[in-house]
C-alpha cells in the first residue's frame, strides 16, 4: 500500500522522519549538523555543495521537506540557493551562519528564508524546525482557497514535494478536486492535523522548470510587470493544467525577487549616479540613431537602462528592447555618464549588473544567476562566473533566464573582431544599431561579433574570475548580434546568444566595452554564452548583473585583471564605451561591487567618448581592485571628458561610417590583439584614436 515506505512512515509520525537536506561546505559543521538532526529523528541528507543540493532537489521533486543551508559557501551564495529553492521548489529553507549580523539575517528573510539560525546550532533549535514545514503547508493551501479557486496546486507546497510540471499538469485536475476536498477539510481543522493529512498526501506541486519560468517571464513581460495578473499570465502562458493559483504564487515570488533586484540596482545606480548622474536621456536608447559617438558605451548604459527600464517598470528584463537597452544608441548626449544615474540607473546598474549576471550564467558556477528565477542557463564555460555564484544558482543548466522575449532585435554587435576590437567594434556596432534604431537590445551588428569573441579567448586565463564575467559578456555580445560571426572566442561566444538579444545587447555592450579591458573581454565573452541562455533577457541580465555585482564584490576578480590590463588598455578608448559598459560589468567582476559602481559611472561616461574617454576608462579599469574604485572615479571623470570630446562627433550619421572605420581599426587591432587578452590592448589605443577621428 505504501508507495514509498519512507513517505508513509515519516509522514505519519511527523515531524519524525521529516526529510531534511543539509548543505554546508564545512565538513565539521555538516557532520555536527547531521548528527544533531538525526538526534531529532529526522531523515537527513547532506551535501557540501550547493550545486549538488540543487541537483538533488531538482531530480526528485518530492524528496525533501526542508532545506537547511549555510550562508557562506564557495560554490554558490547561500542566499542564491535560498532563492532558487524557494522559486523552483517552494520548500522551506533555513539559513545557517556563524554570522548573526542583523543585516544578514534581514537579507535571509527578504530572500525568503523561513528561519535564520546561528552557528553553533543547538539541538533545541532544531527540534522545532518542523514548524516551518507545517506552516508552509498550512498557509499555501489556505491562500489558494481564499483566492477562490478550486485549484490549489500549491497545497502541496508545504509538502516539499516537488512535482514536475508535467506531473502536476497531469494530476492537476485530479489533484485540484482532491485538494478542494482536502482544503475544505483543512479549513475546518485548520490548526492542525488536517494539514497533516493534506500534507501527507502527495499534492502535486508545480515545478517551475526553466521552460515554464521562461514562459511565465515572457508573459509577464508582455503585459508589463505592473499590469501582470495571474489570470492573464495563465492565459498567455497557455500551459495546460497550470492553475491560476500556481501562477499567482509564482508571480508573488517573482515580484519580490525583482524588488530585491531593483533595490540592489538602485543602490548601485545611486552610486553610479553620484559619479555621473546623467539623466535618462541616454537611457532612451530608443533613439538608436543617436549613436553617433560610441554611444555604445552609452548604449550599453542605455541598454542597461533599458534593461533596467524593463525592470523597474516592468520589472522584467524583457524590456531590453527599450531604447535604454542599447544605451549606445542615442546616448550621445546623455553622456552616459553613469549607469547609475538615470532613473533607470538603477536599472542600468542593474543592467550592467544584470548583464553581468546574466553573462555569468554561463559561468561555470552554474548558478550564476542569483536567484534568477528563471535560472539562466549558463554555459559552463563561463568561468568568469565566480561571482556568478549567485547567478549561477539560477544558471544551472536548468535555469532559464527570463530573458526578455522582447529582445529579438537586439543584436549585439560585438563587432570587434579582435579582442581589442571589441571595444571598438562594439561601439561601432552599437552605433550602427542605434542608427538603425536597432531594437532595444544591443544591436550589435553582426559585423564584429568576432571581436567579442576574440575578447573572450584572450581572457580565459588571466582573469579567471573575469573571464567568467567576460564570458558572460561575450556570450551576451555574441548572442546579440553576432549570429553571423562564429565566435572563436570563448566557448561562450560560441553560443549564439542571439536570441537573447536584449541580453546580448547588454552583454555585447558590455563585452564591447570590456574590450578595452581584459576583463571586459572576458566578461563579454562570458556574457555571450550567457546571453544565449538568457533568452529571457533582462531579467536574467539584471540578475546577472546583480549577481555579478555581488559576486564581484565578494571576489576581487580584478586583481588578476589588473595585472593584465596594465598596458595599453587605455588606448582603447574607442572601446571605451564598450568598456564603459564593461566596466560595470567589470566592476562587478572587479574586485568589488564598489568597483562596479564607479565603473558603472565610468561606463556611462565612456559611452560618449570614443577613444579618449575610453582610455581613461580603461585605465581605471585596469587598476586593481583597490584602485578600481579610484580609477572608476577617474574613469568617470575621464569619461566625462571623453564625452565632451565625443560630443562633437557626428551623431548618428557617423556611426555608420565610423563603423566602417572601426571595422578597419578593429581589424588592425585584432591582429595585434590577438594574443592579448585584454581587448583594450594598446593597439586599440591607437586605433581608438583613429576611431575617434573617424567618428
Amino acid at each position: 500500500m505504501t508507495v514509498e515506505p519512507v513517505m508513509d512512515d515519516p509522514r505519519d509520525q511527523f515531524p519524525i522522519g521529516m526529510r531534511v537536506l543539509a548543505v554546508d561546505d564545512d565538513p565539521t559543521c555538516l557532520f555536527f549538523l547531521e548528527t544533531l538532526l538525526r538526534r531529532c529523528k529526522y531523515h537527513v541528507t547532506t551535501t557540501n555543495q550547493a550545486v549538488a543540493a540543487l541537483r538533488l532537489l531538482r531530480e526528485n521533486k518530492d524528496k525533501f521537506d526542508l532545506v537547511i543551508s549555510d550562508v557562506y559557501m564557495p560554490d554558490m551564495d547561500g542566499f542564491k540557493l535560498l532563492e532558487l529553492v524557494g522559486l523552483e521548489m517552494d520548500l522551506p529553507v533555513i539559513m545557517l551562519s556563524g554570522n548573526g549580523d542583523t543585516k544578514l539575517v534581514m537579507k535571509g528573510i527578504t530572500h525568503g528564508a523561513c528561519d535564520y539560525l546561528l552557528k553553533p546550532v543547538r539541538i533545541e533549535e532544531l527540534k522545532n524546525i518542523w514548524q516551518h514545514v507545517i506552516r508552509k503547508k498550512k498557509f499555501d493551501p489556505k491562500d489558494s482557497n481564499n483566492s477562490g479557486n478550486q485549484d490549489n496546486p500549491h497545497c502541496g507546497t508545504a509538502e516539499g514535494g516537488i512535482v514536475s510540471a508535467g506531473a502536476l499538469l497531469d494530476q492537476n485536475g485530479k489533484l485540484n478536486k482532491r485538494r478542494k476536498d482536502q482544503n475544505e477539510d483543512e479549513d475546518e481543522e485548520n490548526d492542525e492535523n488536517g494539514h497533516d493529512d493534506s500534507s501527507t498526501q502527495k499534492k502535486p506541486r508545480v515545478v517551475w522548470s526553466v521552460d515554464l519560468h521562461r514562459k511565465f517571464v515572457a508573459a509577464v513581460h508582455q503585459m508589463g510587470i505592473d499590469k501582470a495578473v495571474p489570470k492573464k499570465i495563465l492565459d498567455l502562458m497557455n500551459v495546460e493544467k497550470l492553475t491560476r493559483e500556481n501562477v499567482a504564487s509564482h508571480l508573488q515570488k517573482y515580484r519580490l525577487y525583482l524588488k530585491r533586484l531593483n533595490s540592489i540596482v538602485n543602490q548601485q545606480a545611486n552610486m553610479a549616479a553620484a559619479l555621473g548622474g546623467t539623466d535618462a536621456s541616454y537611457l532612451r536608447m530608443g533613439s538608436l540613431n543617436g549613436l553617433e559617438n560610441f554611444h555604445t558605451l552609452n548604449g550599453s548604459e542605455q541598454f542597461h537602462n533599458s534593461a533596467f527600464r524593463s525592470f523597474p517598470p516592468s520589472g522584467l528584463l524583457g524590456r531590453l528592447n527599450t531604447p535604454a537597452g542599447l544605451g549606445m544608441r542615442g546616448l550621445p548626449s546623455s553622456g552616459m555618464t553613469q549607469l547609475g544615474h538615470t532613473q533607470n540607473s538603477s536599472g542600468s546598474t542593474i543592467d550592467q549588473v544584470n548583464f553581468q549576471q546574466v553573462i555569468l550564467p554561463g559561468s561555470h558556477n552554474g548558478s550564476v544567476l542569483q536567484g534568477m528565477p528563471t535560472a539562466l542557463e549558463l554555459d559552463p564555460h563561463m568561468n568568469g562566473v565566480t561571482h556568478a555564484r549567485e547567478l549561477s544558482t539560477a544558471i544551472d543548466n536548468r535555469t532559464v533566464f527570463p530573458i526578455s522575449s522582447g529582445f529579438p532585435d537586439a543584436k549585439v554587435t560585438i563587432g570587434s573582431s579582435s579582442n581589442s576590437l571589441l571595444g571598438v567594434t562594439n561601439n561601432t556596432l552599437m552605433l550602427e544599431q542605434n542608427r538603425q534604431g536597432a531594437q532595444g537590445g544591443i544591436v550589435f551588428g553582426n559585423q564584429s561579433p568576432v571581436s567579442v569573441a576574440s575578447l573572450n579567448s584572450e581572457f580565459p586565463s588571466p582573469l579567471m574570475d573575469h573571464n567568467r564575467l567576460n564570458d558572460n559578456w561575450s556570450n551576451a555580445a555574441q548572442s546579440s548580434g553576432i549570429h553571423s560571426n562564429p565566435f572563436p572566442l570563448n566557448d561562450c561566444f560560441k553560443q549564439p546568444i542571439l536570441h537573447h538579444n536584449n541580453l546580448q545587447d547588454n552583454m555585447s555592450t558590455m563585452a564591447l566595452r570590456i574590450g578595452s579591458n581584459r576583463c571586459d573581454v572576458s566578461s563579454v565573452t562570458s556574457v555571450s554564452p550567457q546571453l544565449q541562455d538568457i533568452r529571457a533577457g533582462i531579467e536574467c541580465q539584471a540578475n546577472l548583473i546583480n549577481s555579478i555585482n555581488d559576486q564581484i564584490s565578494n571576489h576581487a576578480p580584478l586583481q588578476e585583471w589588473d595585472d593584465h590590463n596594465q598596458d595599453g588598455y587605455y588606448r582603447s578608448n574607442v572601446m571605451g564605451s564598450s568598456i564603459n559598459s564593461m566596466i560595470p560589468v567589470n566592476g562587478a567582476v572587479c574586485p568589488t561591487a564598489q568597483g562596479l559602481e564607479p565603473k558603472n559611472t565610468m561606463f556611462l561616461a565612456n559611452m560618449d567618448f570614443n577613444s579618449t574617454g575610453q582610455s581613461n576608462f580603461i585605465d581605471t579599469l585596469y587598476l586593481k581592485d583597490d584602485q578600481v574604485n579610484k580609477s572608476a572615479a577617474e574613469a568617470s571623470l575621464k569619461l566625462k571628458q571623453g564625452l565632451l570630446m565625443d560630443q562633437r562627433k557626428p551623431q548618428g550619421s557617423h556611426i555608420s561610417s565610423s563603423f566602417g572605420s572601426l571595422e578597419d581599426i578593429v581589424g588592425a587591432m585584432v591582429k595585434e590583439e590577438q594574443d592579448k587578452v585584454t581587448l583594450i590592448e594598446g593597439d586599440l589605443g591607437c586605433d581608438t584614436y583613429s576611431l575617434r577621428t573617424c567618428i
Partner: protein
Amino acid sequence: MERNQMHRQVSVMRQSLFDQGYLDEQFIQLEELQDDANPNFVEEVVTLYYRDSSRLILSIDQALERNPLDFNKLDTYMHQFKGSSTSIGAKKVKAECTQFREYCKVGNGEGCMRTFQQAKKEYTILKRKLEAYFQARQSGPSETACRPRN
C-alpha cells in the same frame, strides 16, 4: 582502584580543558550527542575538524605570504575556520579567529599575521590535549557524556 583512578584522571583532564578555556559549551553539546549509537562521536568530529582545518590553515598561510594581502580572501578563509572551530568548541582558537577578522576588516596585515600565529599555536595545543584526552578515555572505561563534574 585503577579504574576509578583512570576515571578520575580522564575527568580531571576534561575539566581542566574547560577551566583553562580551551573548550566551551559547544564541546558539551558534542558530548551530549554521543550515545550508544554514536559512541565516538566527539572524537570523530574532532578528528574531522583537524583534518579539514589543516587544509584551511595551509591556505591561510599561503594567502598571508602574498603581497599585497587579500583581506577579503583571508576573511573568507578565517570565517570558515572560525565556523569549524566554533562547532567543536575550540574556545581559544575561536577567539583568535575573531581577532584576526577584526584585523582583516581594518586591513592590518601585521596584526593578521601575528594573530594567526597565535591561532595556530592554540590550535596545536588543543589538538595535543584532546588527543591525550581521547587516549585516556579509550584506555579507561568509556565515559558517558555528562556535565562537568567537579
